[in-house]
């Protein structure tokens, strides 16, 4: 009896020792490669593209000699799109794996949960897709504390501007449309987006008939479409990312006779046509780029590499993550350091040719400090339309000569023309 629990105690001690040894290498963070953490949801294509884009950038950088004589190493963490998992992964990245910078998430709420941790742990952090203006607003309002956070994609107010600019050209000038309904999921990033829509769409020539916000859990969109149809708008300007497949398929199956435009993040996925069984035909959305489009000289080579390495064209986050890592590497090079404050100072000076346009951040005077610059001289923001299984670029006209095409049931095109 007595020796029996002695063995048990022995087993316990062995377990403890194993833990101690397991933990020991963690302290020995030497002069090896410079580590960059990537935290995103691997099960989602948008998230997977983030880690793939980052890996690709690191491979390119390492092929050209690395950074300050050291290689870049990407460490990927899966956050299952949960704030808590993301924070836990962030802590692990900072404290256990000693990364020097973090590229994370396409969800604004997750980015907002990470932002205070970036501040607390002084970790240069960039989100390649989260669009909420709150992220950059916090940097603006409390620069000393939050300066470590960067938005590597257009903030929501700029996204709204892009939608208004393109809508003016595409829907008002070309199709003579007059009215729109805003249809957005209830999330942090759509609040500034909707506000932007409401202020700039009328200026662009589209009267806003209604704003419909819905639960991101919604699966049945029939009532929403019926409600919108009753208002007889010419176009539905969306702000959707959590949902995408379902509203698109139901729009198609129910033959809602109204153009579906705005921002539908899932529709930018190359797999969207297959996911919707072709229901995406005719859908217009804002995106980063489409296959075959050369926004800058870097766009096509990176896209080609991506297809070569991962077998398919990435979601737009593949490009933004690629650019984010390039920007971080550039900042480290210029700073000759991996110290957080030095990286941040150099990041702010970034002015490079990215894959989606000229890459740089708004300064401290802008209300959106550290958000990506929007504009024809910077990132122009491309609009695409699904046409017979292909993503076709339709705006801006300078880059995209293609015409819009709509399925026969979208009657609002002809009604407006008359």
């Amino acid at each position, binding site marked *: *009896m007595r020796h*029996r*629990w002695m063995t*048990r*105690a022995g087993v*316990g*001690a062995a377990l*403890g020792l194993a*833990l*101690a040894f*397991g*933990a*020991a290498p*963690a*302290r020995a963070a030497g002069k090896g490669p410079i580590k960059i953490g990537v935290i995103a949801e*691997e*099960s989602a294509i948008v998230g997977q593209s983030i880690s793939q884009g980052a890996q690709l950038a690191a491979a390119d950088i390492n092929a050209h000699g690395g950074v300050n004589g050291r290689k870049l190493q990407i460490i990927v*963490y*899966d956050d*299952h*799109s*949960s*704030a*808590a*998992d993301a*924070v*836990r992964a962030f*802590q*692990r990245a900072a*404290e*256990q*794996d000693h990364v020097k910078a973090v590229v994370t998430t396409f*969800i604004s*709420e*997750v980015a*907002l*949960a990470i*932002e*205070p*941790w970036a501040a*607390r*742990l002084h970790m240069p952090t960039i989100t390649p897709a989260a669009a909420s203006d709150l992220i950059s607003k916090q940097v603006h309002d409390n620069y000393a504390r939050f300066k470590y956070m960067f938005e590597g994609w257009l903030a929501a107010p700029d996204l709204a501007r892009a939608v208004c600019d393109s809508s003016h050209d595409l829907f008002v000038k070309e199709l003579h449309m007059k009215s729109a309904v805003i249809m957005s999921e*209830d*999330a*942090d990033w759509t609040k500034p987006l909707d506000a932007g829509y409401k202020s700039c769409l009328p200026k662009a020539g589209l009267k806003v008939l209604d704003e419909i916000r819905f*639960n*991101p*859990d919604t699966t049945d969109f029939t009532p929403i479409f019926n409600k919108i149809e009753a208002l007889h708008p010419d176009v539905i300007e969306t702000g959707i990312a959590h949902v995408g497949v379902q509203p698109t398929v139901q729009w198609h199956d129910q033959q809602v006779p109204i153009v579906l435009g705005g921002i539908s993040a899932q529709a930018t996925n190359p797999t969207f046509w297959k996911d919707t069984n072709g229901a995406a035909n005719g859908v217009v959305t804002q995106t980063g780029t489409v296959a075959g489009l050369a926004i800058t000289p870097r766009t096509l080579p990176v896209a080609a590499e991506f297809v070569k390495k991962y077998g398919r064209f990435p979601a737009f986050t593949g490009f933004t993550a690629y650019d984010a890592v390039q920007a971080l590497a550039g900042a480290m090079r210029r700073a000759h350091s991996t110290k957080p404050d030095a990286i941040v100072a150099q990041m702010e000076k970034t002015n490079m040719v990215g894959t989606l346009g000229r890459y740089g951040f708004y300064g401290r005077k802008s209300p959106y400090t550290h958000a990506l610059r929007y504009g024809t001289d910077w990132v122009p923001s491309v609009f695409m339309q699904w046409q017979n299984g292909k993503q076709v670029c339709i705006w801006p006209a300078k880059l995209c000569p293609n015409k819009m095409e709509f399925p026969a049931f979208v009657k609002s095109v002809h009604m407006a023309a008359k």
Partner: protein
Amino acid sequence: MRFSPLVAIVLGALLFGVSAPWWLGAYFLGVFTVAYYFGVFAMSWDLLFGFAGEVNFGPTFLIGLGAYGAGLLNTAGWPIPLCLAGGALAAVVGGVALALPALRLRGPYFGLITLVAVLLLLDCIVIFAGVTGGEIGMMVPDVLSISARVNYWYAFGFLVISGAILFGLSRSSLGLILQATGQDRIEAAALGFNVTKHKLAAFVISALFSGLAGGMLTFYEGTASVDTVVDLSIAVQIIIAVVFGGRRTILGGVLGSVFLVLFDELLRPIGQLNTFVVSAIALLVILFLPDGVLGVLLRPQEGR
């Protein structure tokens, strides 16, 4: 007096816990910090299930109330200690609300109600995403500390105190009476015990510790999210931790929690599939070792 294996295990665990900050890296300290809070969840659940005999499938209802209650108060500008108290109060109110049907219903119906309570809380959080952050999570302004060590000590201290209180209660007169009411409420009443009063007490105690731990976890992580404190998968994790560690042992839940959290973390390199593997292991334990680890370790004692 014989030196019981339980004492040896507890002493070993305490030694491990106290010495850990000197030889564990910051990150693993963080892992244990989370595991300790889960340990309190598990102990609170075991008090209700193992002693009062109430199968509560919704421990996360109580935890979520505590976490979100504390978080919302913090957003409103309250200091952390008051927020924790407020969150615990919210959880206790929730515990009483759960106890009311529990006292009227038998069999599967009570279990169902606890599940519905979680769904309801989940929907409320999603619907009022404006204040709660919805499915993604709510950021709270304050954290306990940003030092992994300090956080570890908070969690460890909280675990030891809660463990001592809950284990003490389970071995006290109240624990005896609770077991009697849990096993057969008619017989317990015939022995002169007011079953309603004692069950209510069990719910309140369980809710109090669940809510406190939920609030503490929120202020450790800086966020309260559905995925960490409300989701049914968390309830499952708690139940599994208890079943794995040993039902009706109170302390077994801590063992199970540490195992689950640690394993989930150690298996992180295999990527998305870590949850799959941990679930599979837990399923096997449930199928083949229903008495749990501590149950097996302590078993020889009974055969005297």
